[in-house]
């Protein structure tokens, strides 16, 4: 795909920002010994409420959920950031963010004890991040600015 220099620049900045955000979220959770998704999951509402509550139903499942969350964020963030397996990382990122979105969907009539940091109706910052990832999926920059370039070329061979 041919982009102008400015198009390339803004797409790359968007990619780096989302990568940075997800990677740092993972790192921050990793270095906080007291972090756990319990409270957030317990606060869930909406049609998947039972599913999130199942996640905290036993310390064993919760351990897996916390682990997958931390390392998922780090791997996805890093992948998007350096452009490694970018497509896989973007799809995984969309899935993970969708899980966040659906645990606290900003629908009419749902109340949360977790502060959201804004006022949202259907559209919130998580949804926008998901949509931005969808844009990055369709407008790739990793084949020029990313390690995927090598993989892509080698696999073409």
């Amino acid at each position, binding site marked *: 795909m041919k982009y102008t220099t400015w198009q390339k620049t803004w797409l*790359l900045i968007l990619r*780096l920002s989302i*990568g*940075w955000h997800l*990677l*740092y979220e993972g*790192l921050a959770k990793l*270095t906080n010994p*007291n972090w*756990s998704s*319990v409270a957030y999951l*317990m606060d869930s509402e909406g049609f998947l409420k039972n599913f999130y509550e199942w996640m*905290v*139903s*036993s*310390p064993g499942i*919760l351990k897996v959920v*916390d682990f997958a969350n931390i390392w998922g964020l780090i791997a996805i963030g*890093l992948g998007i*950031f*350096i*452009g490694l397996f970018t497509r896989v990382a973007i799809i995984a990122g969309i899935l993970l963010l969708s899980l966040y979105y659906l645990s606290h969907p900003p629908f009419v009539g749902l109340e949360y004890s977790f502060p959201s940091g804004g006022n949202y109706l259907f559209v919130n910052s998580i949804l926008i991040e998901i949509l931005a990832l969808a844009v990055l999926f369709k407008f790739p920059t990793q084949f*020029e*600015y*990313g*390690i995927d*370039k*090598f993989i892509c*070329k*080698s696999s*073409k*061979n």
Partner: protein
Amino acid sequence: MEESNKDGKYKFNRREILKSLATIPVLGGLAYGWYRKLQYDRLRNSKLLSQLNLTASPPPLKKSSGEKIRLGLIGYGGRGNHLARAAGFAHPELISSWKEEARENPTDHRYRDYMEQEDLKLEVTAICDIYDIRANNAIQAGANIHRNPSGGEMGKAPIRYKTYQELLKDKNVDAVIIGTPDHWHAPITIAAAKAGKHVYCEKPMTWTVPETYDVVNAVKESGIVFQLGHQGRQNESYFKAREAIEKDVLGKITLIEVTTNRNSPNGAWVYPIDEEANRSNIDWDQFIGPAPWHDFSLKRFFRWRCWWDYSTGLSGDLLTHEFDAMNQIMDLGIPASAMSSGGIYYYKDGRTVPDVLQTAFEYPERDLTMLYSATLASTRKRGRVIMGHDASMDLSSNMIINVDRDSDRYKEQIKEGLINPDVPLYTYTPGQKQVDAITSPTEQYFAGRGLLYSYRDGKRVDTTFLHIKEWVDCIREGRQPSCNVDQGFHEAMAAHMGTISYHEKRKVYWDEGKQKIV
């Protein structure tokens, strides 16, 4: 742009390679930022938390071992059966219901927790209850040595005695757990001590002031191991709270506020009345005992906490938990004075004890006031707060320290932005990553106040179990438990001062020299 070599493989020129790795330096930026953030956190922590490096924790749990201790259970009502199951003797029907509920709700871990509860090497050889139905339940619980649900294999049934005097004569009883109404605590404790039986007695220690001295004398002269039932003593966060206060994190403490906030019939002691109960299966004369005579009354029998005739009211029932917690954390001792007010404002059901009560305890030598405020008609959450000039501490099952914005000690750090008074400086939550369901509102109340569960090595445990375990370990090792008779003396006198002030509508004082309430 790309070139192919002879093998047909792509060869990247330097410019291409550099471009593809262009984002890596930015990653360095993130790594640097993260490193700075970690440094900042570490600096903040080392500056602030070096003094706050709270390492205190309850003594590690070691397995109880030694000879079997033979127990007598005296009183098997609401509290009595909790004490029995904490000792490892739950009624089979209770186990059945836990099992059933765990099947329906996977977060209900009561069955699992109970089955995992350590075997304290006890045997129930005798029981005594003046109500036949409860006595039979006590026998079944005492015989349930394999922790089976209904229909399971039982062990040898303990002997039922109709009076505690007979039970105390039994040579096969080494120690007793007393879970009777308040007006029986002291007479039974004294008799047990004289019979050489170790005693675990529910709080409050006594019902009247004079018997308080008698309990202390009897326990000390006999040399038995006495534990008063303030299971909050085992709460993990209290150990941290004590350490934080010893390290002077809060600065000068001048006010402590403790509260009771309940709003349900059960919380207000309006307990259900058994349909099967009647004059023929309750030994009413023995129930009355040292209390003023009253004709047979099922209401009085099942809801005895509502009458001064058998109860110590809010002071003895709930203030004592709060007082004992603060006494444990701050070694407060008996207050110099007490002043109470309140009334029967909501439950106009014939009770004589108040349902709203305020008591102010003064400690002029420590320059502080402890204020107790209770209502049985609102669950509006009011904390248990220790207020210092430099910081305040919120204490429930967890512990939160917030710096005061006008603190002198943390002035510089607040200015430098190292401390934000709006954000807790320190939060300690025992078993933070654990999830467990707690069911009824009363249970939630107790759990929130650290009276139901604590955590050891990250595992949820019943504090009453820990408290009984401490008692039996002390019996085997000849040590004194944490809530011994001296602590009980403080607790009983403080509660009596509050009650006397309420009755006499005046400020009452503690005469340290004469060891008397005046």
